[in-house]
């Protein structure tokens, strides 16, 4: 086996990404879908860090990107959950199929 390097990490992130995608496709529940989304975001983060670390160690762009992504993820999660709860309150359900019928 070759020592762990960039390809290994990329494989890890890819796997994680598609696990998230699988969840995103199979779940009908908005909250679980949001959770799958978080997984996907994280796999992207891994990529950023790995590229930064292995290919461009002279600057910190990858790390900064990750920090900003995490920030955005937090903001996104907050807003998403506010919307989900709002949706739930008005329709008593957070199933996507139900949500589609809703008009905003």
């Amino acid at each position, binding site marked *: 086996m070759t020592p762990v390097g960039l390809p290994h990490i990329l494989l*890890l992130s890819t796997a994680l990404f*598609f696990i998230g995608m*699988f969840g995103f496709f199979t779940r009908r529940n908005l909250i679980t879908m949001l959770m799958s989304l978080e997984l996907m975001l994280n796999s992207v983060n891994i990529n950023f*860090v790995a590229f930064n670390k*292995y290919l461009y160690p002279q600057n910190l762009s990858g790390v900064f990107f990750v920090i900003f992504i995490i920030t955005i*993820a937090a903001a996104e999660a*907050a807003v998403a959950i506010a919307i989900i709860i709002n949706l739930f309150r008005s329709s008593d359900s957070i199933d996507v199929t139900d949500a589609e019928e809703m008009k905003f």
Partner: protein
Amino acid sequence: MDFKDIFFYLIAIYILGTGIMAVSTRKIFRASIWLLFSLIGIAAFYFWLNLEFLAAVQVAVYVGGIVVLIIFSIFLTQKTGNQMAKTGTQQTIFAALASLLGFALTAYLVYQHHFGSNQTQELDASIENIGTQMLNPGDGGFLLPFEAVSMLLLSALIGCIVIAMKIKKEETA
């Protein structure tokens, strides 16, 4: 293979395993807990990469914040004891196939591509460095995004409150 590599594989298995559990368990609360473990695993991975700051940020924001929020929203909207309904077999197969295919394709790409390893220099992700760069208004600095973040957070905050207060008004009415 030295310690470091073993640890990498362990962490990778851990992340993927908990990730799979997170998307496949049928109890929603457990799903959130698995997600949490997966996220912690990613933090561990950052530790492995010697990016302590990132790891801590990951733990603080994701684990301490987002997951707690998710758990609260689960309590609020679900009967947590019930199992979630099964997804149709067809859909599951389709999703699994799509994911596997996607994975295979990407993995192939990754395998094909030879990354020029540029290990001449260690990444200096010490907090001082991050701080200096963040406050650097010049080239290569991240001052603007830093200030933009505050705008983002502000808008997120206001957005949340507007949405949430809408509920409150309805409730009190």
